[in-house]
């Protein structure tokens, strides 16, 4: 009886948990593309100047996205086992509650979360002039710097307004292959 109650309570708790409400479906191929793009995005921006010895990417997630974050970290590792351009790639897996863990990161990858976490993460990135990438392109509207445009084909989706606000310059060729986000587009 107690077990049945506990099960019902668990289901109720899970149902009411905001994190559960924001649960998102992540496509493996898209993650793979992100895994390829993210380190290059750093190297093709002025953020590469912040690189000391290694490329540091901070993957911010809610606890519910832990596995996905691990998966992305693995994909990065798989795509760049030797690092890139003589730089090792270090991925920091951190929950949104522990933003300080991403202080040395040149890029924050934002998994879906609630708006407050997102605001805080974006504020953090603005303070540290750190690039932000989100899986969901809809977050560009909130101030994320880059995402993926999933149309007939997949393109980097650049929020040029926020990047300029951070005074970060991107290489032209990267801009050429990217789609420029316009506010309210998506």
């Amino acid at each position, binding site marked *: 009886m107690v077990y049945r109650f506990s099960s019902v309570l668990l289901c109720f708790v899970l149902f009411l948990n905001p994190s559960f409400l924001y649960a998102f479906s992540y496509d493996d191929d898209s993650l793979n593309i992100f895994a390829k793009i993210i380190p*290059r995005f750093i190297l093709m921006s002025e953020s590469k100047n912040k690189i000391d010895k290694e490329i540091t990417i901070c993957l911010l997630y809610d606890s519910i996205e832990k596995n996905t974050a691990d998966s992305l970290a693995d994909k990065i590792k798989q795509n760049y086992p030797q690092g890139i351009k003589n730089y090792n790639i270090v991925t920091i897996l951190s929950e949104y509650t522990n933003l300080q863990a991403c202080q040395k990161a040149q890029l924050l990858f934002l998994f879906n979360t609630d708006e407050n976490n997102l605001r805080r993460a974006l504020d953090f990135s603005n303070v540290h002039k750190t690039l932000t990438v989100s899986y969901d392109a809809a977050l560009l509207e909130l101030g994320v710097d880059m995402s993926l445009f999933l149309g007939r*084909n997949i393109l980097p989706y650049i929020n040029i307004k926020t990047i300029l606000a951070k005074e970060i310059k991107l290489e032209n060729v990267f801009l050429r*292959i990217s789609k420029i986000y316009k506010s309210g587009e998506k």
Partner: protein
Amino acid sequence: MPSISFKVKIILAIVFFTLFISATERYLLAQNIVSQFKKSKESKNSLLINTISPVISLNLSLGLHESNTEYLEKIIEQNNDIQLVELSDKDLNSLFTFTKTSNNNFRIVDSNINLASKELYDPLTEEEIGTIVILFSNDEFYELQDLNKTTTLKIFALIFVLLILFIFLLHREFKHLTLLSKTVLSYNPKHHNLNLEPSQRKDEIGVIQNAIVSMFHKINNHAKELDAINQSLEEKVQKRTAELEEANKKLQLLSTMDPLTGIANRRHFEQVLSDTWELSKRKQSMLSIIMCDIDHFKVVNDTYGHQVGDVVLVSVAQMIEQSLKRMTDIVARYGGEEFIIVMYDTDNDGAVALVSTIQTHLKSNYFKSMQDKPVTLSFGISSCIVTKDLKSEDIIKQADTALYKAKENGRDAIVSFKDL
């Protein structure tokens, strides 16, 4: 070697140089255009591939193959001359292929204008990640060549028309010169037949024509002056010729005639005797020579003076001459008061008959005022059939011998040599 006319030479030279210069210019220009076209195509192809390769490289490095496909399709759409695009990864696996035509048989005219290929490198790691090959159409090149040919043909057609026009104009100008030369050649100063008026043209041909007209006017004037001088000279020559003829006649008379008596002189007699002798020899006819001497002529001179003596000589000579009725007979003064007569085809009797007539005539009609000392004549006659063995000197000598005999016989006598 046949000579080529000046007109043909000019036409040939102009045609040759025009065609040579035009052909050279067209050839060089066509070469230049083709060269510029190749450079332009090469530059465009190079620009295109250099522009797209970083994007493709980045897409390739990011694994955005669909982006590459879309991008390349857009590039192909924007560049109609692209015939083939082949994108492959570093292991030569084809990632994108495009061919405009069904068959893959492309002709590469010039690799610089036809083909553009580039190895693709990762923009960050600079590792080779693939190759892109683009083949461009030759249509523009062929169109350029066709345009070059068409332009060349048009230019040469224009040159041909201009040359024809030039030749026509040159022919027209030379026609004028030809007419001018024909007029000059047909001109005869004697007939003054120059049908050429001064030209109104101000060019070289007009100047030449006016110079010729002016020259011919001068020639005409000089010819007239020469005609007048010739006429004058001709008249003078005619006059002088007539005078000369007259003088010649006189000279001839003087050379054949005895100046005192007006009958033939001895030299003329000898000439006539020679001719008559030869004729008689050919005909084997008779010839008679009569030697005549005025008897006691010295007494006449002494008595009446030489002037009367001369009158006697003249009178006797004229009388003897008038006695000769045939043209073939001739009397000549042989010397002093001696006369000699030659009679062709006349025998001794004929000669005697003539002499007798002369004597009778002399006694009855002449010198009646001198009856106290009458003028008589002695005659010696010699006649013969002229043969080749006989000489004229012989018969003269015989006549002279007969005359001597007549003188011996008392003068006023007739003696024939055959009677001696």
